[in-house]
């Protein structure tokens, strides 16, 4: 079968690889019909995630058709068209029982701090991902959801990560009616977080990014007040002034370790890799939220450490909430939101690329070329 093949930072190609096999009685083999490239893949692509081995296949956002099932999977049948949450989870450990499907303890031998994620390095369990023709789906009786027949496949694939992650970012913000919410990052995750902030009753939503084309999109899609931080001298002062000198009630970091905007963080975090990614968006979030406010982090950072103003967290009495999205927990609610027309995930898809051109799709998404917001990979000739 054809699969994405990582060769080193900034280098990928499509290769012939052996078909995945059932390795556990609760596995399924899925033929991929849609897969996405995500901001999280960029951390891998840039060589920032430890233990990303050459030869690995990325891709944690995909849907497809069940081709083969292990003997213990009883709730799916061959031929089902499923969307597959990006977290792999057993459904019965201490954490899964509490709905923490992003923090399963029975899935990742290499790290206890991180659950299992498809195609996300050995640090996330060593699973191949869905940017391929076929993929092994462990615990197939827990994660995958049969796509309702009224649902567009493009919406379905966005429900595997982007939508639940944006939604959970807003949920963790503990937004109360009338709250002012500032979202850092106008990528798919930030856009969805800003959109969902309204569902929780926000009174005002502000989005910060550096790309005008993304901000333009955010202005009407979310909708939100939008500002380009490249045009602002000091983002924190700007946001304070915009909130009567107090700061926002809730600040959301939807950027993570690939953040721009500060030379020191870029040098230490992205170039020298002395910190686990550039933490400037988080820095701004902490400093621009009000005293007693909430900072919600879904942006992804590496496992070592970052320079963040923890003293201000203490002095301002800030609550920090963060996690990998618990996709499975949120799906029933989010499927309902799509059905009711409260959210329109597929509107964020700007590019549709055959698997053959995956290297170009990565470069385009990483370098933010051609107005790219979300690229979807489709099977060759499909």
């Amino acid at each position: 079968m054809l699969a994405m093949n990582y060769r080193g930072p900034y280098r990928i190609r499509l290769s012939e690889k052996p078909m995945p096999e059932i390795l556990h009685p609760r596995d399924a083999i899925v033929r991929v019909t849609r897969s996405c490239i995500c901001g999280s893949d960029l951390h891998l692509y840039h060589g920032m995630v430890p233990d990303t081995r050459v030869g690995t296949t990325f891709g944690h956002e995909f849907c497809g058709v069940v081709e083969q099932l292990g003997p213990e999977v009883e709730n799916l049948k061959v031929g089902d068209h499923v969307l597959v949450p990006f977290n792999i989870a057993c459904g019965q450990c201490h954490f899964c029982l509490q709905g923490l499907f992003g923090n399963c303890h029975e899935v990742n031998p290499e790290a206890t701090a991180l659950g299992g994620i498809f195609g996300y390095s050995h640090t996330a369990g060593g699973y191949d991902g869905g940017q391929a023709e076929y993929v092994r789906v462990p615990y197939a009786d827990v994660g995958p959801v049969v796509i309702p027949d009224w649902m567009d496949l493009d919406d379905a694939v966005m429900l595997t990560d982007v939508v639940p992650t944006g939604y959970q970012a807003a949920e963790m913000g503990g937004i109360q009616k009338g709250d002012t919410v500032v979202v850092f990052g106008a990528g798919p995750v930030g856009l969805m977080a800003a959109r969902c902030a309204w569902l929780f009753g926000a009174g005002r939503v502000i989005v910060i990014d550096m790309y005008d084309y993304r901000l333009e999109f955010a202005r009407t899609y979310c909708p939100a007040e939008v500002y380009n931080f490249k045009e602002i001298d000091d983002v924190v002062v700007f946001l304070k002034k915009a909130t009567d000198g107090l700061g926002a009630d809730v600040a959301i970091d939807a950027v993570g370790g690939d953040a721009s905007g500060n030379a020191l963080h870029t040098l230490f975090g992205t170039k020298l890799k002395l910190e686990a990614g550039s933490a400037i968006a988080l820095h701004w979030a902490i400093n621009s939220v009000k005293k007693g406010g909430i900072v919600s982090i879904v942006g992804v950072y590496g496992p070592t450490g970052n320079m963040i103003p923890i003293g201000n967290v203490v002095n301002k009495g800030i609550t920090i909430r963060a996690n990998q999205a618990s996709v499975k927990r949120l799906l029933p609610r989010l499927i309902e939101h799509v059905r009711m027309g409260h959210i329109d995930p597929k509107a964020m898809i700007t590019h549709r690329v055959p698997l053959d051109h995956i290297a170009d799709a990565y470069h385009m998404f990483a370098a933010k070329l051609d107005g790219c917001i979300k690229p979807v990979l489709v099977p060759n000739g499909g």
Partner: protein
Amino acid sequence: MTLPVIIHTPALTSGAIDTSTIPGWGVDADPLNDPTYPIRDRARDPGLTSDWERPTIQHPDVEILQSIEHIRQPAVVGTSVPPSGLSGMMRRTAFRWSESNWTHWLLLMGADRVNVIEGIVDDLAHARIPNIPAEMGIRSELAHNKRGFAKKLAVGGLIGVVAVGLLKRRRQQ
């Protein structure tokens, strides 16, 4: 196979204190003061025990590296690219340290860089010259960022010319 690791842990004294002997125990407990709600479902929290009903255990037939913070192999594991070569040796060594230790991650990052070179050597050994511009997505660069590409080329060219000039001068001296 993982390297044998000996961890010396002092005996834990869990449960040694009887809470009924503590004056005022629990008088201020407030279920609404739960910042983890609704991310955590307290109703299904059986307490801190690793004694849940476990899934069937997968027996991988490739080498799996395991964090020393785990008390047992997780039931299901990924088997995509087993460690091999020099980078594999570095990765094995890294797993002598916990996730909390910088050495662990620095060794893994180092192994990743070594692995890139191994990848190129492996390509050449299979009589394949990696098409690096194509792997880096040159087509989309040319289609959507001609100007940026020209700038990068020009800067690269300039650095090249200066470097060659400097080398020549040094040789002459």
